[in-house]
């Protein structure tokens, strides 16, 4: 794509992903034809990725406020108050999750690496030091020819970036399904800590202030990445490789330290990282949000290559770059700090009172646009949506009992979604910063990192069950949020808020839009009932290849607070002689269950309904037991139901479990049903009576489910599996799969 392209603007607009009515709107707003640079600016600012034009209307349904919320969606990341820290400081947790799906499919190592880099920048741009990373990965079927190479590259990229920067990767999830064969999902989340009274925002506060660029130089990489991320794939997608950026984690590490030092110096008036759509979106957003104008001299931009055009500089997505607006007279502070960290930096312009973005290059004005239409007048669509057909609820009949219970349990625990992901998380540094209390290697439902220097800790989790959302977007949407809330609760944390990462297909198809609307409404309902607001998020649409959409995957990242990390729970310290208590009601829901898919090859049926009132009641009860120090062995029930939870606890604790067979339900429904709002606890026999009494008083259903001991997983009269056999199957799948030759 040449800057000298002779093509007429209308044709170029189409190539840049603008629809003809969108182009007409630009002509109307400008009263003239845009030039190439201006068209480039419009096309990225109005891309789905930057404008949320298909989802904005529905995203407004999320609750986004709460007593602890300092900053909700709209900034680089969400900010939530966590109270006092060491030395009387007031602290806040800052977090966001973001997708890097399309780049990771095209170039897995760099795509995933720059996804991690980008999400970290969103967090430290707000003034927070990153303290934890998570990732939610969805790959195609294991037997698809591309899957192994994609896993290898994505995992190496995530590790290569996060390990070098020195932020622990403490939790995540990895699923495989043929629905992602042509479009994998790489969602990365970063959590940081900041002083609550020192949060930095992007809005330029006044005219006449210097605009300072710092970080890596600008090159020709990633041009039009935001537009690529807003289009479907086809078999020629490999040709888009040049739109994938290249990451430099060493530069990111220097950038973090320099940015935090610059902020501490008091020089920063506003700041924004250059992420998707690079210099364009950062400058437009800073000036637009501040209600001022901005005037940039592109000749001053540090450039990696010679002869870059204004168009290329504005659209470049070169990584590890920041844009700051400094307070008057503070440029010397910046120069000193950038020199210390060896970063390129330049004053590239100033804010104005014109309400326009003016770009100069080689003595000419190459762009002169009013800012308002770029952000505020971005197209907003109320796309037609078809509600999906309600799935049928599966009957509790014996037709769904396995022929061989032992084989079924082994199959379940070693299936790609349930098998141990040790192969991948052993490639992530989970301990740097020396505050990790629970990570992927720990038997715990959430990662836990200490708030440095205090008794507080943060719990973090990422969750989505795409098969539920596929079957019933509304109930599935509720479940996504409920599961994140439950995972935080299961370690004893008070759930604070979530970030969401909505991955769907083409919103221009009514059935896909139906999934989006249903899932958002279900999620929003759960957020309301659980007091679990959405404080940041990202939408990734057009996840389709050759017209086939991915399973709807609205991933959420949840963050919770432990007031005293001495009172926390996990499931790796169960002891022989303890009694297992099952909290929550079991009805044997097998629709859309993992068991049904793995053992019967069926993906039909209604997902388990989510009773949010019961979810809250049961969760509050369990958390109360943990924070009062009465229980410290807890596991939530999710994929694979009771038997999978019991197997997890047994494997993590290296202690056998014997489950009672008489539950009033058919055995297979009791073992494999995925009813929600449930937890499995292990407690001393002497504690059972009082806990049962307290549960009854709280209106919580609780039942004895079995006991711990020995080295076998037993259901009397049904199955008896030595833990070693189960462990070999559970640990063996992934190394065998990855070792089978690339």
């Amino acid at each position, binding site marked *: 794509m040449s800057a000298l392209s002779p093509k007429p603007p209308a044709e170029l607009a189409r190539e840049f992903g603008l629809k003809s009515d969108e182009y007409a709107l630009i002509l109307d707003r400008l009263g003239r034809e845009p030039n190439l640079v201006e068209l480039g600016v419009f096309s990225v600012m109005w891309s789905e990725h930057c404008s949320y034009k298909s989802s904005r209307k529905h995203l407004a349904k999320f609750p986004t406020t709460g007593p602890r919320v300092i900053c909700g969606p709209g900034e680089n990341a969400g900010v939530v108050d966590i109270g006092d820290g060491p030395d009387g400081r007031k602290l806040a947790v800052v977090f966001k999750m973001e997708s890097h799906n399309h780049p990771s499919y095209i170039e897995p190592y760099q795509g995933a690496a720059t996804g991690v880099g980008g999400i970290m920048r969103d967090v430290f741009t707000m003034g927070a030091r990153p303290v934890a990373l998570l990732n939610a990965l969805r790959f195609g079927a294991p037997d698809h020819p591309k899957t192994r190479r994609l896993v290898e590259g994505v995992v190496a990229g995530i590790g290569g970036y996060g*390990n070098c920067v020195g932020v622990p990767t403490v939790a995540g999830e990895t699923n495989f399904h043929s629905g992602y064969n042509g479009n994998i999902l790489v969602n990365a989340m970063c959590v940081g800590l900041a002083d609550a009274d020192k949060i930095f925002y992007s809005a330029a506060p006044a005219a006449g202030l210097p605009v300072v660029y710092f970080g890596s130089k600008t090159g020709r990489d990633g041009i039009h990445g935001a537009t690529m991320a807003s289009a479907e794939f086809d078999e020629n997608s490999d040709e888009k490789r040049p739109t994938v950026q290249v990451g430099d984690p060493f530069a990111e590490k220097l950038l973090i330290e320099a940015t935090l030092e610059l902020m501490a110096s008091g020089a920063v008036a506003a700041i924004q990282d250059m992420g998707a759509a690079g210099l364009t979106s950062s400058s437009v957003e800073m000036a637009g949000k501040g209600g001022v104008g901005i005037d940039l001299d592109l000749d001053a931009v540090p450039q990696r290559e010679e002869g870059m055009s204004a168009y290329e500089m504005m659209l470049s997505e070169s990584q590890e770059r920041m844009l700051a607006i400094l307070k008057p007279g503070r440029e010397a502070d910046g120069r000193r700090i950038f020199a210390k960290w*060896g970063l390129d930096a330049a004053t590239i312009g100033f804010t104005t009172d014109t309400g326009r973005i003016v770009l100069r290059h080689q003595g000419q004005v190459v762009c002169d646009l009013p800012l308002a239409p770029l952000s505020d007048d971005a197209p907003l669509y109320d796309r037609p949506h078809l509600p999906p057909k309600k799935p049928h609820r599966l009957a509790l009949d014996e037709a769904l009992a396995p022929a061989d219970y032992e084989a079924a349990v082994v199959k379940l625990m070693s299936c790609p979604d349930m098998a141990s992901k040790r192969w991948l998380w052993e490639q992530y540094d989970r301990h740097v910063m*020396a505050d990790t*209390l629970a990570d992927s290697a720990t038997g715990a439902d959430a990662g836990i990192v200490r708030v440095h220097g205090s008794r507080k800790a943060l719990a973090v989790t990422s969750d989505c069950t795409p098969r539920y959302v596929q079957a019933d977007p509304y109930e599935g949407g509720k479940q996504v949020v409920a599961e994140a809330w439950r995972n935080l609760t299961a370690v004893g944390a008070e759930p604070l808020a979530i970030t969401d990462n909505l991955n769907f297909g083409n919103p221009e198809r009514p059935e896909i839009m139906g999934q989006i609307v249903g899932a958002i409404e279900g999620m929003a309902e759960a957020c309301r009932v659980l007091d679990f607001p959405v404080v940041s998020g990202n939408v990734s649409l057009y996840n389709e290849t050759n017209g086939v959409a991915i399973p709807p995957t609205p991933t959420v990242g949840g963050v919770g607070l432990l007031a005293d990390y001495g009172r926390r729970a996990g499931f790796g310290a169960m002891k022989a002689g303890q009694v297992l208590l099952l909290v929550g009601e079991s009805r044997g829901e097998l629709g859309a269950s993992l068991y049904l898919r793995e053992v019967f090859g069926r993906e039909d049926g209604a997902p388990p309904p989510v009773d949010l009132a019961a979810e809250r009641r049961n969760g509050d009860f369990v958390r109360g037991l943990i924070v009062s120090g009465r229980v410290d062995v807890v596991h939530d029930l999710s994929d694979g139901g009771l038997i999978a939870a019991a197997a997890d606890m047994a494997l993590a604790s290296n202690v056998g479990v014997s489950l009672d067979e008489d539950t009033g339900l058919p055995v297979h429904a009791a073992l494999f049903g995925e009813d929600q709002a449930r937890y499995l606890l292990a407690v001393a026999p002497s504690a059972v009576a009082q806990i049962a009494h307290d549960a009854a008083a709280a209106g919580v259903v609780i039942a004895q489910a079995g006991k711990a001991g020995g080295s076998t997983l037993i259901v009397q009269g049904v199955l008896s599996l030595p833990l070693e056999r189960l462990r070999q199957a559970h640990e063996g799948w992934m190394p065998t799969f990855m070792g089978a030759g690339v």
Partner: protein
Amino acid sequence: MKAAVVVFPGSNCDRDCAVGIERSTGAAVDMIWHQETTLPEGLDLIVLPGGFSYGDYLRCGAMAAQSPVMREVVKAANDGVAVIGICNGFQILCEAHLLPGTLLRNSALKYICKSVDLDVINANTRFTAGFGGQSTARMTVGNGEGNFFADEQTLARLEGEGQVAFRYRQNPNGSAHGIAGIVNARGNVLGMMPHPDRAFEPELGSTDGATLFRSVMGCA
């Protein structure tokens, strides 16, 4: 008691080392920027922390070994001051020729982050004396290039002179002789791949790192 932690561009365990030493020994810890040309007076310990100094570009530790501050570190080591290089710090010590051998890419060609059990091979060094009768230690490793290599003659000398401080019970990365940490001939410079700076409190899964820090600071 006084310790210093050197900070290179790309170091990422500098704070962990400082906090680990402070919490386990009560010593004051100075952070020393890599461009310094002098070190504080009266240091009992200098730590080269883990991380990715200079992004591991060229070769792990190669560029950091040429930093201005390293001339002072070499001088202090030659004067008998205790020096520990952890992970990337070990790589830097090898590149600076304060320790023999080098660290190659892990045999599985992947970054490895896991808990490892170590045999304390020589409990008579100033770093390991605090382990006393304790013959094993548990710490975590986190590296892509932790595979210790030296020629046969050097390995024989290290073994024969008691310079092997720690050995993996299960070799995670192909290290020659399962070596996890070595000391120099004089016994005042220790390089190790496992992280004592991630093993100084029970909540972190081990306190064996605290034992090491207390040992070298003479407060075991």
